[in-house]
């Protein structure tokens, strides 16, 4: 097998435009990779090789006729099954196909279609994206390719997104992030993830979880790929920053507590390398961190917004919900309107202050996920699932509640030889600048593939 698909997207994009590389060949490689690795990994809810080939041929024909319609023309992009894609059913991780209004494409898919990206299929998601582990009792939990012996979880809720990149059936994976659902699976599968600032990219055409927090995002194998894809969807372009003089804020509270062996160490090692390249570590206390996290632990606003959505739009879907999800509804039903408004107010007030304070540094860092991806058997009971789910989302959810933008990039393997992500966070609206910083960091640290090699279940 040739290895077109292992090249960086910027490189492929040039090849496609110079006619040296065919989108169809790329699609065929993606299909072959899926045939080779796909079965045990179970990344896709819907796999459409024929559609992908057709789309790739269209991209090629356009290139040949001199049409360059956008940076992702001809590039395979997997789509989380929360996004509406015309002609494809949306299940949103539930056992039943959602009504047709959930198949009306939003601006992100429509934009990618206009630039003739290639869609090979829809990736698995946690049921209605409610959970950070990746667990799904209806369709099975995709397998994390980094452990060949045990079935470890891939992270969620975009549970198939990172896996689709690892197996090589897509070069960009669309996800959505309400409390970490892009960054967690990216981190646990050794990929890069971008969570955009709330409101920056439209969530139209994406089944909602918590409309006050939902944000679209992307997963890729490297920051270079992420920057390319970001520029294809966003109005701004990310330019590489410089690591020399970069003020990196480190908050020694919460984010570093209870980390599994090797995680804090792996992140700190990467930070040391950045310091050697000229970055400065600054002690930084994110104001409001504790009250915001405490409010999240008390239930926050996601469960009640989610329940309200189901009750109004999809009442038939409540009775088939995963019991792990249902048990979190009891409190939501009892919550008063006043308490809900109070929580929103609390988040907004702290977000305002935090965003102001973040001007003092260039970027704030933490481990993306505190724990090593659990084994499936350890999360298949309510008692096992609850605390691990909370800990999985702890470090990422702050970014949603505080209205920040965030990136995760793979920097090490932990004691269990599972990937460790470095989370970079910045003020809301600074998405392009943040991606530029991540790009500079990657130039110092190297890509995930360079640092960690390939996942054992996807060795070439």
């Amino acid at each position, binding site marked *: 097998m040739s290895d077109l698909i292992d090249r960086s997207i910027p490189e492929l994009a040039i090849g496609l435009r110079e006619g040296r590389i065919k989108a169809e060949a790329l699609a065929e490689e993606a299909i072959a990779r899926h045939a080779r690795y796909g079965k045990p990994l179970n990344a896709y809810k819907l796999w459409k090789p024929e559609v992908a080939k057709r789309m790739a041929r269209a991209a090629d024909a356009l290139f040949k006729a001199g049409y360059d319609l956008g940076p992702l023309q001809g590039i395979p992009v997997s789509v989380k099954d929360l996004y509406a894609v015309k002609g494809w059913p949306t299940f949103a991780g539930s056992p039943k196909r959602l009504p047709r209004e959930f198949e009306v494409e939003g601006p992100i898919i429509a934009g990618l279609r206009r630039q003739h990206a290639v869609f090979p299929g829809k990736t698995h998601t946690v049921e209605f994206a409610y959970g950070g582990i990746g667990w799904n009792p209806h369709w099975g939990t995709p397998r994390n390719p980094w452990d060949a012996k045990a079935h470890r979880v891939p992270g969620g809720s975009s549970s198939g997104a990172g896996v689709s990149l690892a197996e090589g059936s897509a070069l960009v994976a669309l996800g959505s992030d309400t409390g970490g659902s892009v960054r967690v699976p990216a981190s646990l599968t050794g990929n890069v993830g971008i969570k955009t600032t709330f409101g920056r990219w439209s969530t139209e055409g994406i089944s909602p979880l918590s409309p006050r927090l939902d944000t679209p995002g992307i997963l890729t194998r490297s920051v270079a790929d992420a920057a390319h894809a970001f520029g294809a969807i966003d109005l701004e372009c990310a330019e590489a920053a410089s690591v020399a003089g970069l003020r990196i804020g480190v908050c020694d509270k919460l984010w570093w507590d209870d980390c599994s062996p090797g995680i804090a160490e792996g992140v700190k090692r990467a930070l040391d390398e950045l310091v050697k390249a000229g970055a400065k570590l600054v002690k930084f206390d994110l104001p409001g961190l504790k009250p915001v996290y405490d409010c999240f632990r008390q239930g926050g606003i996601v469960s009640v917004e989610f329940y*309200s959505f189901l009750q109004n739009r999809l009442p038939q879907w409540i009775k088939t919900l995963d019991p792990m999800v249902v048990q979190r509804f009891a409190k939501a039903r009892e919550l008063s309107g006043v308490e809900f408004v109070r929580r929103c107010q609390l988040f907004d007030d702290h977000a305002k202050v935090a965003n102001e304070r973040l001007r003092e540094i260039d970027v704030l860092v933490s481990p993306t996920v505190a724990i090593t991806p659990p084994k499936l058997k350890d999360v298949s009971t309510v008692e096992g699932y609850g605390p691990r789910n909370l800990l999985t989302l702890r470090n990422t959810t702050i970014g949603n509640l505080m209205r920040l933008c965030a990136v995760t990039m793979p920097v090490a393997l932990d004691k269990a030889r599972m990937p460790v992500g470095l989370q970079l966070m910045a003020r809301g609206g600074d998405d392009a600048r943040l991606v530029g910083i991540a790009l500079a960091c990657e130039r110092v640290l190297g890509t995930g593939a360079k640092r960690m090699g390939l996942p054992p279940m996807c060795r070439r």
Partner: protein
Amino acid sequence: MADYLSRPIADLAERLRDGTITAIALAEEAIERHAKYGAALNAYKTWDAQRLRRAARAADIALRGGGPAGPLHGMPVSVKDLYGVEGYPTFAGTPTRLPAAWEQEGPLIRRLRRQAAVITGKTHTVEFAFGGIGTNRHWGAPRNPWGGAAHRISGGSSSGAGVSLGEGSAILALGTDTGGSVRLPATFTGNVGLKTTSGRWSCDGIVPLAPTLDTPGILARSVADAAYAFAALDPGAPDLRSFMTRVAGADVAGLRIGFSEPFMWEDLDPGIGAAAKRALDEVARKGARIVPFDIPEFKESYEMHLKGSVLSVELKQFLDDELPQWKTTLDPVIQRRVEDGGSISAIEYIRRRRFIVEKGKAANARLAEVDVLVTPMSPLSPPRLEDVSAIDDYVRHNRKSFRFSCPINNLGLSALTIPVGRDAAGMPVGLQLVARSHAEERLLEVRAAFERVLGTARQRLGAPPLAKLPTDNTKRSQNR
């Protein structure tokens, strides 16, 4: 009295610049008018003539020194007592002064200041702006200058705003509008009222009622004044001169005017429907097209508003967390609605928020088919104070008052009211023009076109019968 203050703002601004008049002369005129009518009309919670004079003198000095600071330089403007204004206490219609944090100025007041406008004082408001009638058991209800010998209500919650224009102590009044609180007092007092689209003007520095629906707005005596003030205050302001030219040249010919029956034209107090329809006929004769128009979201959102919409929940959260002591002195009518907010579940609250967003989208889409939708501004003729003093009567009238105004807030649209006639009781009748979100500029143009056909408020309604007001002393005791 020189009677400068009866002139259009643009005219005054020009005279100020060419030196024909001074800001202090305008201020003295405002003070004189207030001295004459103020006690009877009770427009202001805080009136400070010394501060007013100081500001006017400063404006004159600034004008001689560096030229005009902005379009509203030296213009007397009244401010609803919900806005923080440095040097003035904020009561927000409550019996107790609010903490100093509520006296900090937000962007809108800062814009006034930067233009060296002269703040005349702080006008009365319904307690926490929660009510459309304009009564206030702590400070008395301002008196509608059109009521003559009878004390009729002035509309609320910006209850003193329209009255300050009526007595002539201000030529522009700042209000806020959560369910009609700019447009109702404007229509009841025969003025023009503009409610901005939610989010267009910042609500920072204003005591909130329901942050997701609150909008600042202005009351003015004519379309030209409102357009001038809008261009002066809007952060994305259109160029004032070209905007005023555009507004002045607007024409009704070819306008598509949406007309929606029956909800918006039934159960109107005597004379309101006739006056509004007469105005429409005149506009139609000049070439506007009256188009039957269906917008079910209007009635649906009124019905939700009757259940409290999101107001009672958001106000209760605010009072619980920020001003718990103020809950103990609430007007019982308001107290009841705030407590209602405590019984609404988060799920119901979210359902209402979603209703607002989704119905708003649908209404916006429909409104693309017309230039404006017209409705009577209020189905209610401003009642006599004694007719709303019993709680049940108050509730009934209040619910009726905001029938056509609250849908605008709940659907996130832009709207304004223009006085077009008098009802059977001789009180002013307003016509509401409604357009999509963020259509303020277009609305002002359409409204100017209407005014060219219909005449200004003064031409159409005459002047409020201020001479019929009772003398000072009797009224002052009644008001407290």
